[in-house]
């Protein structure tokens, strides 16, 4: 290398040695990587108490809620689903999905309007075409 290139290489690596650790620290801090709850199931809890039916499994907790004349379902997704797509359907029995309710993405609380006669719900991966989980009331 010429002396010019040697200098450029030196300055580039001194810069990299400063920049990358800063980015690493920020991303570790922001992503909360070493928090014990980061990879575990969420402890999100519902604030609603007027549920008429409640069902729960390892992945979700579902509550059928009646308020005035409106029926809704509250779905708490406890941990991230390792599937490319997760669509929520009504469960009609016979292991088949019924009317589309909505889509789930990250951990959290989801609310959807539904019919009162809901027997259960199915979370379905539309890309892999397989049932992720189902829950009956």
């Amino acid at each position: 290398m010429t002396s010019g290139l040697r200098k450029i290489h030196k300055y580039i690596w001194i810069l990299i040695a400063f920049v990358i650790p800063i980015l690493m620290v920020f991303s570790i801090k922001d992503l909360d990587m070493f928090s014990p709850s980061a990879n575990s199931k969420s402890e999100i809890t519902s604030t609603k108490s007027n549920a008429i039916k409640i069902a729960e499994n390892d992945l979700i907790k579902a509550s059928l809620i009646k308020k005035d004349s409106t029926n809704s379902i509250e779905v708490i997704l406890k941990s991230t689903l390792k599937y490319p797509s997760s669509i929520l359907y009504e469960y009609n029995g016979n292991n088949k999905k019924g009317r589309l309710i909505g889509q789930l993405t990250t951990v959290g609380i989801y609310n959807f309007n539904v019919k009162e006669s809901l027997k259960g719900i199915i979370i379905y991966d539309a890309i892999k075409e397989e049932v992720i989980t189902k829950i009956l009331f």
Partner: protein
Amino acid sequence: MGLEYQLVLWNKHKKTYDKIIAFSMLLYVILFAAITLIFNSETSIETLIIRAFGSLAIIMLHIILSIGPLSRLNTKYLPILYNRRHLGVSMFLAALIHGGFSIFQFHALGNVNPIYSIFTSNMDYGSLTNFPFQILGFLALLILFVMASTSHDFFLANLSAKTWKRLHMMVYIAYILIIVHVFLGAFQQETSPFTIGILIIGFIIISSLHIITAFKEVKIDKAKMEANTEGWLKLCEIDEIDDDRAKIFTVKNERIAVFKYEGKLSAIHNVCKHQGGPLGEGKIIDGCITCPWHGYQYLPYNGQSPPPFIEKVATYELKLLGTIIYINPKAFEEGTKVEPIQFVS
């Protein structure tokens, strides 16, 4: 070094290295797949391929980036430096498989152009937690593509040394993009301290190697030489140079390589005319100084590439007083013949 362009310029040694590269890559992917399936049997084949080739590309990039400084710190790594180009292209292929499968799995199943989808599916640029990390990987892949495709001799010959070198120094930008891509991307889903630790250790090793080497080079540049009354500079004892190898000195801010071969000593400018490779880190092969980067050759006594090649570098006059080598710091015109110093060992 060839007169006509060939798709791949193989020789016996390069074929051996390429076989080692191919075998190692295959072995890594098989081991990765086996371990993944043992510990997480639900992993899909697409995810397995994405992760296996992504991690393989990162490991290979770390190896590639460590070859340069390692070969400056210890000459036993020079044979790997000579084959770095093929390792670089292989690393690009691994990154391409990773990127290609990722684009297919996450962006090709919708109704928009997959490339457009990469840039628009997540616009949360203000967040580190949900940063669109795939864009960083895509940009790094583009840089690696440009580098891999211009590594061929045709581009080496037709781009100027300055342009080619600047183009290939973009690997450092790619490295930063890839590190951030992994930190903001893979770790959003896979927050294993083990994986993070491996990446941090890799970064510390690579950056330390480069910085240590850089400061070692500064020390060499600043070394003062003893001059006698006639202006000749004292270089070293003759025994300090190995047979068919060189020792590099800094004379008037220029690096000069003094070669010892067949009972003779010759000095030439250290920088290869091809792409600025360090000739003094190469060795004498078939009577010619052979650049460790791409195998360009020069005759030690006149700094000229053997016919029909036309590259030539500056030469210097040496003298031997007892066992001590001296150099006249005034360079001769490029390609000037200088009678080698004969010595009896």
